[in-house]
Structures are given as structure tokens and as C-alpha cells.
């Protein structure tokens, strides 16, 4: 499916190497995080030089996003591609699958990505 991104900035978003990121997942080692090595799972490694002078402190891997990704990957609620996370949650709710309520509050409240993990990438 066609990507919905409108500008190249989204693709080639320059990321400053974050030095204050202490809240790292224990599963990820900091050394492989910012480079496209075997262990990392990012598609675009950030550049060493920041673009525009602003620090990008919040990256893709915060806890909320991680929880939402776990929700995306859970096959009990069906495929996640092609449907927004909230729609998928509501569908699971209607089907009686009892999806966790925290996901709903996350999706309706915070500034999280509403599209699934694979949006724009598949």
C-alpha cells in the first residue's frame, strides 16, 4: 500500500544521538541502538549531527510505544496491518476478546502513534 508520508523529512528524519536516554529497555543494549547493526531494529539510523538544532529526546522506543507494539503483535486480536490501533482495539472489544483497558486509555489519551507498527512499512 502507498505510504502516506508527505515529506521526505519523515523518511530521513535526522536524529541526534541521545545521551540522556536512561530509560532504556533492558532487552536493548545502548550500543546497538543507534546504528544499523545486526541487533538493532531501526530502519534509519540517526545521524551524528542534529538537524535544526533541536534535541529529539523522545524516540520510538518508549514504554508506551512498546506496550502498543505488544498489542499489535498479539495474534489473538487479529492482524494489525491496514487497521488503526484504536479500530483494532474496538473490534477486539466487540468480538468479546477483552483487550486490556490500558491500551484504550493510551490510545485515546496520549500522544502515541495511532497507526500500527507496520504502517507505511509493508
Amino acid at each position: 500500500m502507498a505510504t502516506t508520508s508527505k515529506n521526505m523529512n519523515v523518511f530521513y528524519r535526522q536524529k541526534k544521538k541521545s545521551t540522556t536516554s536512561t530509560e532504556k529497555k533492558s532487552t536493548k543494549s545502548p550500543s546497538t541502538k543507534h546504528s544499523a547493526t545486526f541487533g538493532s531494529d531501526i530502519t534509519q539510523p540517526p545521524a551524528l549531527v542534529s538537524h535544526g538544532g533541536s534535541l529529539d529526546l523522545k524516540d520510538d522506543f518508549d514504554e508506551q510505544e512498546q506496550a502498543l507494539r505488544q498489542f499489535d503483535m498479539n495474534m489473538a486480536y487479529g492482524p494489525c496491518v491496514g487497521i488503526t490501533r484504536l479500530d483494532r482495539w474496538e473490534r477486539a472489544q466487540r468480538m468479546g476478546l477483552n483487550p486490556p483497558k490500558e491500551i484504550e486509555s493510551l490510545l485515546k489519551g496520549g500522544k502515541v502513534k495511532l497507526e500500527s507498527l507496520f504502517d507505511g512499512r509493508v
Partner: protein
Amino acid sequence: MEVDSQEQLQRKQSTYLSLDENFEIQKEVYRGQQYSQIYFARLHMMRTLLYSLVPNWKSHLPVCTVLELEEGKECIIVGTLYKHMKLKPCILDEYSKERSVAPLIKPHNFMHQDDYLVLEDESGRVKLGGTKLSPSVYVTGVVVALHGKETSAGAFFVEDVLEAGLPPQIKRPLKSREDKYVVFVSGLSIGRSSSNPLQFQLLVDHITGHLGDEEEQGLAAEIVHLVIVGNSVEISRGLLNGQNLASKDQSRLSEPFKELDILLTQVFSSHHCDDQHFKIAASLPLDIMPGSSDPANFALPQQPLNRCLFPGSTTYNTFRSCANPHCFELDSIRFLGTSGQNIDDLTKYSEAKDKLDFLERTLRWRHLAPTAPNTLGCYPFTDRDPFLIDSCPDVYFVGNQEKYETCLLKGLEGQLVRLICIPRFCETGVAVVSKSCPGVSSIQIYPSTRVNKGEKEKRNGKEGEVWIDTIEVAFWLHAFLLVPYSVLAYKNKFL
């Protein structure tokens, strides 16, 4: 001229309820989703249902998913069937580097003795072995429960199959005993060079009561509904090849619709002639469904034909343009049917002794079109599968088939369904009339040749002299033209 003042016959009425909301796609928004969503919805609904039926079937066996299968452990698994077909046309064959001489593919059926079935759920898939599950009967997209065990080769040896079976049927309260009739006609194919407009004209004249004497008109007054089941119009291929049309060709494009609209308007307008013979007051409610050759969307569920195509008929509020598949209730008797694409697809990918067998299978699988979206075009719904049959209909019909067939299907819980295959009118001239009695509807088909001269004379004796000539002419016209072409149903009064 002696004017016999016959009182006006009132056409019988029925309460109509349309249940097509499930098939409307106006509210759907396409976000680039794929068909995995509709398969998930189907699997989830059917699996919940099958899990509730498994304890009654074999309660001692554990139920597990495909991934949890262990070698030698007898268990029950539930999933969607996939049939691997050797001869199924694949788009990638066009790009194949080795252009070997393709085997002779029969265009009407793609079965091969090497076809095998695979069961699939979210966790995985497993090839099915054993002789209990015949690949010639099942198609991709059917959800079943299987009892068996995994073999050392990694396949699942099937010992028994559980299908969902007929859905529960709502018991209708027994209403009045009066007989009402519903007429089904399909495949009018107006615009085809071989179609004879006189046939449909004759049918319309008959059901609106323009033909025949008082008794025949009385019968026609008992018809409460007319359903046109798809393929009403056929646009010639030459006009559709994508080139710009000359202005004379553009008028040719709309001719079939104009013809159809004129004919349908006649069904409604009951006062367009001063004919004293004609005495049925109310017009006949009409449902028109789209078919594969009609200008509607290709993928199921086909949306109702646009009202602009029928400028004359849409002024009447008894004209309804409906979706395909179509579900409606008349006097709380449920009718469900399609224009034939689902059964035609089953014919291509499986085999049965007749079309009624396919109809029965779709009811037992509780799914109108199991091959959608695999080989039959379908809208990629995300949250539901609208083709699942929740409640057993009383009359289940399919249009555009080769010949008329019908049978009465009895379910294990006392469900009674009348299965009807409606033939193509342009080829056979057959319309189907269903007696809409509560519970069971029976079809009585009998050719009009039985209206023999002896009967006519007996009736004519009652009328005044002046009527004999006109009735005779009408009858002979009727008999002469209907005999080779049309077969209609009557009650046993004429016999």
C-alpha cells in the same frame, strides 16, 4: 355491448422488511487493508460457534490450536480450510520463465485429483490427510472442526469432521391461511441479441392481471411480490472495450435500461389502460437485485443499482433497488438469496451432483460465499464478515442458473428451508412462483398447456356472449406464446 361490472380485485398485501444493512458498504472506509481482516473475522465468529458445538459432538477430546499439535495426540482443531489446487489460474503463470505447454484447463472447473486441503488458523497451517475430508467437496474459506491426530510426516490425519450445520431458524407464528405468491425471475438479459422482449412482456402482463379472465386475474391478485434476481441487462461487449463512444453508440448503451424501465413501470401502473378486463387495483411491489452483467460494482456485496437507471420506476415507492446478496422478510418469512456468483464460483472449484447440493452446503457451512475473497471478488471488511448466515432463512434462492430446481431441506433442529434455483429467463422463459405460506413454501410449477380448450369453454359458458371472442383470443395468444417459452405456477384450480 353488455358491460359486465366486475368489481375490482384487490391485490393482496404483505408486510415487507429489508434486512440488507449488513451488505451496504457506504459507511466503510478503505484504508488500504488486506483480506486478512475479513478472514480473521470469519474465523473468530465461526470458531466461537464451533467451540460451543464441540462438547455435543466429542466432549472427551481436547481442543487445541494448530501450533499445539503433537504427534500421535488425538485432538480437535478448528480452522479455515485452504484447498491447494493445481489447475487454479495464477497470475504469476504469465510471468513464468518456463513457458511449458499448459495443460488443457477446463474453464468451467479447475479440479484435479492432486488437490489437497490444508487447515489454517492464526498460529499455523497443517496439511490434511485421510479420506474423510474430500477435496472435491470442500473449498477454501470454509471453517470446520476436525478430529484426528498428527502423523509422523507432519500432516494431520482426519478422522471426523464437524461443520457448523444449519443455523437456528426463528419459528414463525402461524398466520392466516390465505395463499400469497412471490414471483422470482432472473437473467432477463435485456439488450442481448437473442433475448425476446415479448417473453418478459408476457410475464409482466400476466402477473399484473392483464391476461386471462376473472379467475386468472384472481390468481394474479394473490401475487404479493416480485423479485428480479440479477442480470436484468446485458450491454454488448463492443460498447465496453474502453474506446470513446460515438453519439449513436451512446444511445445504444442506454437502450436496454430504457426498455427495462418501461417494462418495470408497467408492473406498477395499474391504470394505464381502459381495458375492462383489467381489474387488479394495487401495483406489485418489486425488488431488483444486481447481477454479474449489471452495471453495479464487481465485488460482493454488490450495491443496489442506481436509481437514476430507472427514472420511471423510482417514482413508485414500491420499487426497491436491493443489494446482492439480498435478505428480506415478507410477513415475517425470511428470504435470502444471491444472483448466482457464489454458486457459480463453487461450481468452478468443487463438485456436486446438482446446484441444490451447493446451496445446501453453503447453509451447512453457514456462509453465503466461502470462496470470497479467494476466488470471488469481495470488499475487504475489517470488522465483520457479512456473508455469515446467522439465522436460517425460510426460502433460500439463487438466480441465473441453467434450470429450475427446488427441494425442501430439513435441519436437525426442525429447520425447514425451501431451496430454489432460478433459471435464466432469457434462455428458458421460466419464472418461479413461490407460495408464501408460513413455515413451508411450496412451489407448484405447471405448464400452461394444461389450460385446455375444454376448460375454457366451460368457463366461457358463464360469461356473456360478447366475451367469448376476446377471451378466446387472449387465451390462444397466451397459450401459443407461453407454451414454447414460459412455464408459470398456479394453484390447483385449473386442474
